């Protein structure tokens, strides 16, 4: 894993992730959020358990996205963690039991109160639906990523 950026004030981070599988990617990013104190020790297990019960892959086009998250009780401080994968890994499609998609971008969400994140979540989903923006994130360019993540908080 390599840090691309971390904005302590706005609470977003971006990492380049070399993962063997979807669960490997989830463990790496969840471990990072735990280490940095954004989430509790229980978060990582909760993310994995949730992904198995309610998968989070979004088939938004050529560049697939996943938005793993867990219940608010596992969160200390809200954060959005972007993981740009070196190589895509497969995720199960949300609302499906077996359909898989290839995912290159992860947005791991640490959510505390839904009321605080309404606009952020809607903006995040708009980003997930925009292949051009997703493609720009794949560049791992710090300035580009900073601009896109900042736009979530406007």
């Amino acid at each position, binding site marked *: 894993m390599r840090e691309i950026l971390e904005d302590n004030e706005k609470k977003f981070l971006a990492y380049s992730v070399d993962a063997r599988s979807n669960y490997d990617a989830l463990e790496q990013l969840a471990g990072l959020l735990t280490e940095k104190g954004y989430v509790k020790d229980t978060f990582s297990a909760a993310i994995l358990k*949730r992904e198995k019960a*309610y998968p989070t892959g979004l088939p*938004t086009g050529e560049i697939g996205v996943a*938005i793993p*998250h*867990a219940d608010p009780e596992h969160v200390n401080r809200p954060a959005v963690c972007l993981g740009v994968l070196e190589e895509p890994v497969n995720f199960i499609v*949300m*609302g499906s039991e077996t359909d898989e998609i290839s995912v290159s971008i992860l947005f791991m969400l640490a*959510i505390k109160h839904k009321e605080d994140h309404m606009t952020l979540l809607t903006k995040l*989903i708009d980003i997930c639906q925009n292949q051009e923006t997703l493609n720009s994130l794949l560049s791992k360019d710090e300035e580009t990523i900073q601009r896109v993540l900042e736009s979530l908080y406007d």
Partner: protein
Amino acid sequence: MKKILIACGSGVATSTVANQKISSMLDQNGYKGQYHIEQCKVSEVVAKSDGADFCVCTTTVSGKAKCPVLAGLPLLTGIGLNKLYDQILEEMKK
């Protein structure tokens, strides 16, 4: 007054997005004030479905809901969104 359930795994993330998108679509179609949305966890859907007119879920519902259940994935991917909106508007007319 139509009662709409909107659910996702945790009841806080994707159902929040679904709630916003559906509310704004219904308002634009002249339904402002004519519906009540309750957001919940997908595990609560079967129990809560008794008093609801229909439900939109971003994940699969296990068990038998007592109201029609629409798949909410298009709200998140944008693919097939118009078809889902048509289905919701159909349910509103019932």
